[in-house]
C-alpha cells in the first residue's frame, strides 16, 4: 500500500452557481490534509468528488495523483453519519464492504481491528447497543479493514462529545498513520490538533493556514495551539485569501 499525493485543482460549481473559486490543493502523501470552512461552502462536495461518489457539484478542473493511477478505487471514507447497518453486529459491519464486493469476509481480522479500536467486548453488539463514540470506532475499524491508502474523513467526530472526540482524534491519528488523509471540518481546534497541512476553504478559494511547529496530534491546551486557534478564528472571519494576505 503506497499512499499517493493527490493534486486537486480548479473551481467548484453547485446547482445554484459557483461554490469555490479557483483553488489548487496538493494533498500530501501519508499526511493529514485538513480542509476547514463553514458549513455549506462545498467541502463535502469536494470530498465526494475525490471518492468518485455522485454529487450535484461539478469540478471545472482536475484530480490527479503523483503515480497517475485512478484515485477512487483506493479510497475509504468515514462520514458524520456512521453508515452502519442497524441489523448487523460490529463484526458484520466491519466486513460488509468485502461482502458487498462478493469477497469472503475475514471475521477474525475484523475482530482484531475492533479490539484495536477498543471494542473487544462489543464484537456482537448492534449499532443501537453502542454509544455514538463506539459507533464511530466501528466505522474506523471498517476503514482500517478496507486498508486503502487514501482515507477521506467527512466531519467524522462532529457529533461526539468533547472528551470522546479528543479520544477518537488520537485514535484516528495513530491508526491512520502513513495514509493520505483528507479531513474536512468546521472546527478550528480539530484542524489544529490533527493537520500536517490545512486550508481555509471559502467561496474565494482555499487559503493555506499556518500551523504550530509541533507534530500532530497536538495538545489542545498547549500555548502555541491556543495561539494558533485564535489566529485561525480571526482568519476564518476574514476568509478571503486577498484579505488574509
Amino acid at each position, binding site marked *: 500500500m503506497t499512499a499517493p499525493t493527490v493534486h486537486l485543482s480548479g473551481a467548484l460549481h453547485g446547482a445554484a452557481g459557483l461554490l469555490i473559486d479557483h483553488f489548487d490543493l496538493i494533498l500530501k502523501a501519508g499526511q493529514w490534509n485538513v480542509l476547514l470552512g463553514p458549513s455549506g461552502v462545498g467541502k463535502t462536495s469536494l470530498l465526494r468528488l475525490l471518492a468518485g461518489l455522485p454529487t450535484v457539484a461539478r469540478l471545472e478542473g482536475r484530480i490527479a495523483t503523483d503515480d497517475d493511477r485512478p484515485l477512487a*478505487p483506493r479510497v475509504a471514507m468515514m462520514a458524520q453519519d456512521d453508515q452502519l447497518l442497524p441489523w448487523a453486529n460490529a463484526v458484520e459491519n466491519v466486513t460488509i464492504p468485502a461482502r458487498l464486493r462478493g469477497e469472503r469476509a475475514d471475521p477474525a481480522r475484523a475482530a482484531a481491528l475492533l479490539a484495536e479500536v477498543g471494542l473487544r467486548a462489543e464484537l456482537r453488539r448492534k449499532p443501537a447497543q453502542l454509544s455514538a463514540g463506539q459507533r464511530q470506532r466501528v466505522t474506523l475499524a471498517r476503514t482500517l479493514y478496507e486498508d486503502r491508502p487514501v482515507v477521506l474523513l467527512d466531519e467524522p467526530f462532529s457529533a461526539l462529545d468533547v472528551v470522546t472526540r479528543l479520544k477518537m482524534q488520537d485514535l484516528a491519528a495513530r491508526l491512520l498513520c502513513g495514509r493520505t488523509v483528507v479531513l474536512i471540518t468546521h472546527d478550528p481546534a480539530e484542524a489544529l490538533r490533527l493537520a500536517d497541512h490545512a486550508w481555509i476553504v471559502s467561496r474565494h478559494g482555499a487559503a493555506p493556514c499556518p500551523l504550530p511547529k509541533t507534530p500532530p496530534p497536538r495538545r489542545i491546551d498547549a500555548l502555541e495551539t491556543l495561539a494558533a486557534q485564535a489566529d485561525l478564528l480571526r482568519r476564518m472571519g476574514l476568509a478571503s485569501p486577498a484579505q488574509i494576505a
Partner: protein
Amino acid sequence: MVCFALAVAIWQLVVTLSGVPRFILPGPWLVLQALGGNAALLWQNALWSAGNLALGLSLGIFLGIETALLLTLSRRARWLLRPMLVVAQAVPVFALAPVITLWLGYGMPSKIVTIALVTYFPIASALFDRLMALPPGLRDLAHLSGANRWHETLLLRLPHAVPGLISGLRLAVVYGPLAVLIGEWVGSSRGLGHLMLMANGRGQTALMFAALIVLAALSLLLWSAVEALARWTARRF
C-alpha cells in the same frame, strides 16, 4: 376484553329490548348455541377456507417479493411492469372473481388465485417502495465498496426493506379473508363463505353469524402471527 364484553352486552340488550326477530338479528346466546351445535360443520368449512387462505397468501407473498426484487434489480422491468401493475390493480377483484371461477372452476385453484391477486399488490408495492429508499449513507457505502446491484440488493436493500414487507403483510392479512369470501361467494361448494350463503338462504341467521365469528377468529389469528413476526423483525432488523 372489557370492550368485547361490553359489545356483547349491548348486542343482547338491543335484541331483548327491540324484540327484533331472530332471523334478522339473533342474540349472542343463540349464536353461541349455533357455534356449539354446528362445531363439526364449521370446523370442516373453516379448514377448507383456511387452507385456501394459506395457499393463496403464500402465492401472493411469493409473487409480491419476486416482483419487488425484479423491479429493484432491473430498470427495464420497472419500465415495463410498473404501469401494468397499476392498471391491473385498478380492476376490482370482485369483477374479476367470476371470470377466474369461469376459467379455473369451483374448486381450490380459483380461490387461491383470487386471494393471491388481492394480497400480491400491497406486498409488492410496500416492499418495492422500501427497497428503493436506501438511505444515502448506505448508498455511498455500496458505491465505495464497489458492490454490484445483486449484492447491494441482497445485503443492504433487502434487510433495510423488511419493515416494508411487514407493512405489506399487515394489509395482505386484512384483505386475504375478504378475498376468501369473494371467491367462495362467487362459486364454491365448501368453505365459510359458502356456509354463510347457505345459512342466509335458509334463514339460519345464527349459523351465519357463527361462520362470521369463525372467519373473524381466523383473521385475528393471522393478524397476531404478523404482529409477532413484526416484533421479531423489529428486534432483528
